């Protein structure tokens, strides 16, 4: 197992780190350029823009997904009738392809023929260009990604909820604690390790967003949905600048690591 992890995880990272110190291109010709790719990143306006887009998307997507997952998990926890069926229904989007989901949501958001605009039209709103307006495009994509992915976190949170000792809740009820108080002071603290895991997983997912943007907007309008991974992809496979792309990948890795450590300190700390 350790060998597999070394071969398929650690070695590629080391390879990418070495590649990021070169100007390796398609031909295989390269020269060692030390930290030039990293200093170039600091002054690259495209990088700044992609970083801004990724951070904004993360700020929208993570709370949205975690709240949706938590809310659905709490509801499912209460439901006795056909819980398995509802759990399956909510989990279903997770096992569908993101490309397929993005194509369908692109149609739902369509400014001319979209389902959402048809519904809004019934109450005399719109048409709204969800994917063509810079301030709407990231929330719209975040909704698509949240719809697609919340089932996984929901299942993890549901198992966390089921692990909360019933005796704690019964004791609180006897003491006169209401539903919100029980949730706030018993369930949430008990859920903290699971919540931390979900937060980290969803944050990493948010920082790696690419597919939905690629399919739904191509990074537009005017790079309003041009994420760091999109920038990495373009640098590597459109500009064939593999050294630079590797540097972007490592910077992304560093950002995710720092954010995860901060989350650990804030949410995952031991009481």
């Amino acid at each position, binding site marked *: 197992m350790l060998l597999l992890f070394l071969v398929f995880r650690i070695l590629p990272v080391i390879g990418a780190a070495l590649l990021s110190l070169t100007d390796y*291109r398609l031909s295989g010709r390269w020269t060692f350029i030390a930290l030039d790719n990293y200093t170039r990143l600091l002054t690259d306006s495209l990088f700044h823009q992609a970083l801004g887009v990724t951070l904004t998307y993360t700020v929208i997507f993570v709370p949205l997904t975690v709240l949706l997952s938590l809310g659905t998990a709490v509801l499912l926890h209460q439901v006795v009738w056909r819980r398995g069926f509802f759990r399956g229904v909510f989990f279903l989007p997770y096992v569908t392809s993101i490309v397929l989901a993005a194509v369908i949501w692109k149609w739902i958001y369509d400014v*001319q023929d979209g389902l959402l605009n048809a519904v809004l039209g019934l109450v005399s709103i719109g048409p709204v260009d969800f994917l063509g307006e810079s301030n709407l495009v990231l929330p719209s994509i975040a909704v698509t990604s949240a719809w697609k992915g919340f089932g996984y976190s929901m299942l993890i949170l549901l198992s966390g909820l089921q692990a909360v000792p019933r005796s704690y809740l019964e004791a609180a009820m006897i003491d006169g604690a209401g539903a919100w108080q029980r949730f706030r002071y018993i369930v949430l603290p008990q859920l903290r390790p699971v919540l931390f895991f979900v937060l980290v997983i969803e944050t990493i997912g948010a920082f790696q967003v690419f597919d939905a943007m690629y399919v739904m907007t*191509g990074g537009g309008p*005017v790079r309003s949905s041009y994420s760091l991974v999109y920038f990495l992809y373009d640098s590597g*496979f459109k500009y064939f600048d*593999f050294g630079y792309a590797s540097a972007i990948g490592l910077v992304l890795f560093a950002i995710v690591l720092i954010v995860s450590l901060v989350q650990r300190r804030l949410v995952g700390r031991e009481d």
Partner: protein
Amino acid sequence: MKPTLQSTVRRIAAPLTALVLAAALGSCGDNSGGGSSSETKSITLWMYPVIGDQAASDTYWQKVEKDFEAANSGIDLKLEMQPWANRDEKIAAAFAGKKGPDVVLMIPDQLPQYVNNGSLEPVDDVVAQDKDKFLPAAIPGLTVDGKVYAAPIYHTVTSTMFNKTILTKAGIGKPPETWDEIKAAAPKIKAAGFSTLDYSASPEASLNLNFYPLLWQAGGKVFADDGKTVAFNQAPGLEALTFLKTLWDEGAIPKTALTNGNVVADQPFGKGQVAMAMTSTPADAGTVAKTWGAANVEVGTPLTGKKQVGFGLPGGLAVNAASENVDAAKKFLSFMIQPAQLEDLSKASGFYTPRTDVKAPVTDPAVAKFADALQYAVPGEPNAAARQVMSLLSAEIQAALTGKKTPQQALDDAAEQANDLLSRQR
């Protein structure tokens, strides 16, 4: 029983020996691909849906495989059909790993970057004998730095196409052929409840099929003559983008243009919501004819701004420089540029033959009208950074259309980024 040193060595040595033998046998197998003349050489072709109809495509390429192998015993041709989407990414990844196909279809603006990287083998010797039998743009379009890097097998052309029903509803008798006529028609078409011109402003859409033809019609160029800087931010570029912006502001271009790709069936034009498209292909004509009815499809000539220009290019077969069977690959190219193959390909694909001595019979009148546009076809501007420059410019065109920047600002910003990119090219 405690294992002895001898038995331990044997337990380790046996599988190691087996591994070494397997590796040796494996390498023998590899050699057979590139190998001696007495053994079968294998060449792989990456082909794309040049023939839109799946059944016709299968029939054509199976016949090519069979005929080529019959004429060249000892060469095994393996065909791998690839999608058009993301083809550069796949080719780049394959070439970067020193793998990939022996032969791959390429168009003019793809070639320079692979030539720069040393990934392609010159094929001057393949086309030398028949060089004067090709259309004027066919060989030059596939030439980089004085060497031919692909053997042309088809020639495309684009032109304007109109939805006659919409024009009739708008009371327009003669389809617009110039920029001024489009501007004049736009209010009437809008009053009839339709958009005038279909356009793809998605950053992933090729500018060869949207902005560049307008730029060329305005008398402009994408790159300066030396190819080291861009020229699209000069007066003709501004004129082209201003024309586009005017249409956008008047609602003559559908708002979905920002996310639309270049696929007619998915576009407002294909859905019958827009009066005209400016870079339609014969295949597009077939597609919309199924939706609107052939009687409602009208094919025009390429648009005229200061000049009348359309887009059309040769598609050619290029040889991977890392191929172990370059000679066999070149034999395949020589086979493919013969009249029999080109005529059949033209019949099956609806594209034109790149040879002047081969004329595929055209039965579809719409396709015949596209032939008139061949004389106005520009095959793009070859540059190693052509595709990268497109993606930089696309984002700025969106900025101009959505009013975030003026057309001149947008073009200047794109030019600054593109020139920086070009300065870093090796």
